């Protein structure tokens, strides 16, 4: 085994990540303006931007979903539910809650087959299958009702839809805070950030893995 610089995030993933990040920031900012939390942006502009960016993000997600399923990249997010593997998740949690203060090393090493640590994978999965669907389903309902395409019922009123949408927003804001904070753990902020910018990270490769990349995917090897 030896450390190599390998491209772990494809250009598509990086574009996805950063355009999604920018969209989420714009949506939070304009969404809070619509909610009445601040008035740093004209209301009409806020509504217009929020609608356009939301639709653009939905289009991106449609592409991402297609990509995740067709390339098999989805595996990065599917947790292994065996007891043994659940223990690795706990060990990551234990690290953040305890080990990190003791100067321990992160129990997880990024591999070529698994980009996220178990806790990270589960968090992203929850975001993908719970929080994001809640926000886009309520958002679409709200948008369509505000454009008169659908009529919401007394049980699922536009007010209730808006409240659920707002709660999901709060969860996303909390996620963003923790997500950014966790970049400061480990070696350095920059070391966490750069892979998502240039795609490269240091990965421990077996000889076989290295040879495989040399022969079949030389572009991914950066050293």
């Amino acid at each position, binding site marked *: 085994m030896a450390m190599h610089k390998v491209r772990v995030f494809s250009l598509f993933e990086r574009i996805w990540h950063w355009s999604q990040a920018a969209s989420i920031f714009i949506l939070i900012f304009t969404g809070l*303006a*619509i*909610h*009445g*939390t601040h*008035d740093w942006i*004209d*209301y*009409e502009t806020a*509504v*217009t931007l929020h*609608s*356009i960016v939301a639709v653009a993000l939905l289009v991106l997600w449609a592409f991402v979903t297609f990509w995740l399923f067709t390339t098999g990249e989805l595996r990065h997010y599917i947790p292994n539910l065996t007891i043994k593997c659940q223990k690795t998740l706990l060990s990551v949690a234990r690290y*953040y809650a305890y080990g*990190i*203060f*003791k*100067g321990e090393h992160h129990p997880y090493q990024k591999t070529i087959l698994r980009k996220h640590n178990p806790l990270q994978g589960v968090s992203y999965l929850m975001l993908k299958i719970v929080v994001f669907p809640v926000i886009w389903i309520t958002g679409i309902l709200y948008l369509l009702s*505000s*454009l*008169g395409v659908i009529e919401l019922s007394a049980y699922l*009123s*536009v*007010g209730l839809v*808006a*409240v659920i949408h*707002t*709660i999901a*927003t*709060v969860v996303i*804001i*909390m996620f963003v*805070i*923790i997500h950014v*904070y966790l970049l*400061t*753990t480990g070696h350095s902020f920059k070391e966490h950030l750069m892979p998502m910018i240039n795609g490269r990270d240091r990965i421990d490769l077996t000889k076989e893995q290295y040879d495989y990349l040399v022969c079949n995917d030389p572009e991914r090897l950066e050293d």
Partner: protein
Amino acid sequence: MIRLQVIFFMLYGPIAFASTADHSKFDELAGPFATGPDVTRACIECHNQAADEVRHSIHGTWEYTHPVTGQQLGKRHAVNAFCGNVVSNEPRCTSCHVSYDWRDMNQAPPSATDDSKVDCLVCHDTTGRYSKWPSGAGHPIYKPITKDGKTHHPADLAEVAQNVGLPSRQNCGACHFYGGGDDNVKHGDLSSALVSPSREVDIHMDKDGLNFSCSECHVASGHDWAGSHYSLMATDKEGTGKPGQRRDSASCESCHGLEPHSKTRISGLNLNQHVERIACETCHIPAFAKGGVATKTRWDWSAVDKSGEMGRDIEDYLQGNGEHRHGYLRHKGIFEYGENVTPHYAWFNGQIEYTNTDHKIDPQQIVEVNRIFGGPQDPESRIWPFKRMTGRQAYDKVNNNLVLTQVWGPTTDTALWTNFDWSKAITTAMQTAGKPFSGEYGFVDTYMYWPINHMVAAKDEALGCADCHAEDGRLQALEIPYMPGTGKTPTLDLLSLLAVIATLAGVFGHALFRMMAAVTRND
């Protein structure tokens, strides 16, 4: 589409108005005419259906049976927060009736049976010289009259008759701008500022722009006009109708359609949905009583006082056009005025019920002289702008109902304005109307609502989103099931804030702990 209509109107409007008959060349109109009815006799020789049409219109009957509540309304029956009532105050009030000689509200107007008693000229005069004398029961003056040191001369009725035309804003305004006895007293959105208004006062009536006459919107057939403030079309679901189809509707939608905002903008698509719950007027008339003419916003009758002591310290109101309006009149009480008034907003389905003398009132509450119906759950209701008149007016302390008052009657010993005796004035009016009066009166605070439809602003001056979608927005007091931006989810907002703060505290605490631990380790 509206652009085309506007261009068409500006190009061909004047031609459409041109008549094929020159009335100055008719022998029948050569005159001389001694009285108004003489002119009418000449008119109806040719316009042989006109008198019949007018007498059956609301202008002719001053009666309106409400189609939903069944209430008998119209000026002949309704009570208001101004001079109160017509009955017992004829002929002062009937100086605005489209007839001659109506002197008794208990009788049908003479024009109901006598064609010559219909007044054609008040609506069709184009010279501006014909006007009904305030106390003439609908007649103009026929010989010079000197009043308050000023001599008034009669119009040459033959000249007026030879110059008839379609009604202008001035014609309609002669009565409708002066309801309540003076300029813009009642409506708030109908004043002499609309005779020759600028674009800022009203986008449709702009003298240098569209220059609409009243009947451009209040379309008529057979002398019967669209638009009623007793039963309003609060929600027009028909829009323009099919091309070329005639619609007798005075609604905004009858010209502008049901989706008037730009469909290529997200905000336009949104606003087209607002139309379902928000009347056009709500955003497009941000303020009324524009153009320098104030409207009366409060009338306190309880301050009527022969000595004038009660109003000694009350100053006049100086309005935008430089004219003074009385702050106090000893025979009328205390007045307050407003200009560029922000409307009162309420859910409204077009139905209004009047608190006439036969309604019980609670004198501890503010009495609504007219009650407007509607609510957020009623699909026929939209949020409408109103002028909310506040008043303090007389009521029967024993029977708990509003009363009628004889205010006018300079030669009587009962009229309030002459004799300053409420008891006599109320007794006379109630007796005349055949209503009971206990003899004991007091004063109650009242509200009266006037739907606002005129003084429409240019679109760039209409309300913006944040005028309502804000914590102190214009609709804050209204019951609205859901409206973003108004800060009406305080619990959710607080919990959200706490959750975000807890997260931040968590990560900062974690970071602090890491740093402290690192320092300890390095030691």
